[in-house]
């Protein structure tokens, strides 16, 4: 039988460490400084939201943690190991959803374990567990084209969890959904996270979403990106979008956020 959660919960263990990250995109004609001296430490099983105005460089930062992009300067450590390239210890959920269109829901979810050479029986069990967890039982054999936006992103989340990674990175996963489906997905993700604790880095430009989900919000400045302020969110979960403490915090953070045109 596949073990539901093999990870021991030790709240104070350091999981992710970003030290002095700088990133400049160089082209023939100009150079664009996107991230300047960014530092962050994330503990195991913490849910951290990187929040900032549009186009401020949040995705670039997440890509560096994922190993998809190299920092110009500085290092990222996960579990003490320096990150140079993508790896199975980090699951990623993309803004564009990015499912494999030629694979079924099951095929998408079991892709990671398959590549890692997990035996078929265990792989199927594990995939089924996560498909059930995201509420897609009955859709295992469907292809992505047949799914709605919200359902597709559920597959994306199940796929990220299925490799049993230490860290899950989510890049504006609900940005393309309409407001109502977004509320639904936020509630679902909150349930999944309370059941399956992981270290999570979640990028968004939606302040409601940030406060609803986060243990801690890291407010970023506009380009070049660096930390402006941090907020520990200690409102009891699940949270109420219209409670007075929620709205007060929302205003406070919105006022602190840099303006873009």
């Amino acid at each position, binding site marked *: 039988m596949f073990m539901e959660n093999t990870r021991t919960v030790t709240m104070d263990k350091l999981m992710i460490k970003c030290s002095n990250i700088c990133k400049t995109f160089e082209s023939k004609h100009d150079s664009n400084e996107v991230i300047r001296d960014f530092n962050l430490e994330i503990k195991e099983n913490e849910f951290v939201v990187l929040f900032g*105005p*549009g*186009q401020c460089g949040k995705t670039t930062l997440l890509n560096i943690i994922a190993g998809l992009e190299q920092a110009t300067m500085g290092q990222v450590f996960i579990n003490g190991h320096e990150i140079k390239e993508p790896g199975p210890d980090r699951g990623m959920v993309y803004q564009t959803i990015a499912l494999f269109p030629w694979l079924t829901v099951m095929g998408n979810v079991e892709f990671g374990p398959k590549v890692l050479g997990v035996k078929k029986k265990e792989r199927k069990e594990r995939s089924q567990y996560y498909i059930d967890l995201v509420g897609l039982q009955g859709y295992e054999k469907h292809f992505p084209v047949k799914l709605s936006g919200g359902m597709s992103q559920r597959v994306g989340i199940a796929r990220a969890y299925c490799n049993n990674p230490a860290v899950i990175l989510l890049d504006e996963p609900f940005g*393309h959904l*309409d*407001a*109502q*489906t977004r*509320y*639904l997905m936020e*509630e679902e993700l909150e349930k999944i996270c309370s059941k399956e604790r992981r270290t999570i880095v979640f990028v968004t*430009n*939606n*302040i*409601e979403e940030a406060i609803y989900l986060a243990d801690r919000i890291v407010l970023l400045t506009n380009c070049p990106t660096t930390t402006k302020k941090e907020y520990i969110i200690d409102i009891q979960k699940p949270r109420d979008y*219209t409670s*007075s403490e929620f*709205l*007060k915090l*929302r*205003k406070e953070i*919105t006022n602190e*956020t840099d*303006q*873009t*045109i």
Partner: protein
Amino acid sequence: MMSVQTIMKGSKCSNVSSEASVVVKNLTKSFGNLLVLDDVSFNVCRGEFLCIVGPTGCGKTTFLNSLTKLYNIDKGEILVEDKPIDLKKHNIAYIFQEYSTMPWLKVEENVSFGLRIKGYSEDVIKKRVDKVIGMVGLEKYRHYYPKQLSASMLQRVVIARAFAIEPELLLMDEPYGQLDLQLRYKLEDELLRLWEETGVTVIFITHNIEEAVYLSDRILVLTNKPTKIKEDLVNELPRPRDIADSGFVELRNKVTDLIKWW
């Protein structure tokens, strides 16, 4: 069917008169066997800001497209200022969900497009374009092409184009759905300012309940297919509104309860 009394209550905004600008009677529309709009009737007062909300996929866009007769309708009557709606005769501006700018035209050419079609003289066109481009703050960008602009700027181009024809009726289909929150706040406030300045009647479709409560004088809550009017709520919260205000939260929760499916 909505009673006249509900309509007369309208809003306390100085812009709004009690006379109906738009009258919709028994609007019905189906695609094949699928009934989408089921005998919908309502009025909109002159100068009123009406928001229409409903569950995802309930047919809000079909609603607006049927209203303007961009779609053929099965049954019903739509009057604007007492005459059957006619996109050629009436001054109606429609802002679509996508940024429907024309990529081969510069900002100012996009903005003047409607005016040229309507055959205004160059003098009037220049005056109007200067005015609306100033209103949305794009003076510096009038010679740019759409692809050189950010999403919020494109949305402003579209808004400027809509206001250039000095519409009597402005229809907006989820115009801010794809923008991030900070930009949305900003454009919402800009829209309210323009609305107050010009006194235009607005029908604004949105998924977002908070947005509807923030903007509207009145909210129509729709049911899922077939679409009917579930509730007609008057929103008399004083402007500028505050999302944390208790009246605001109360109305927001009320509308949420009416359409919550998630």
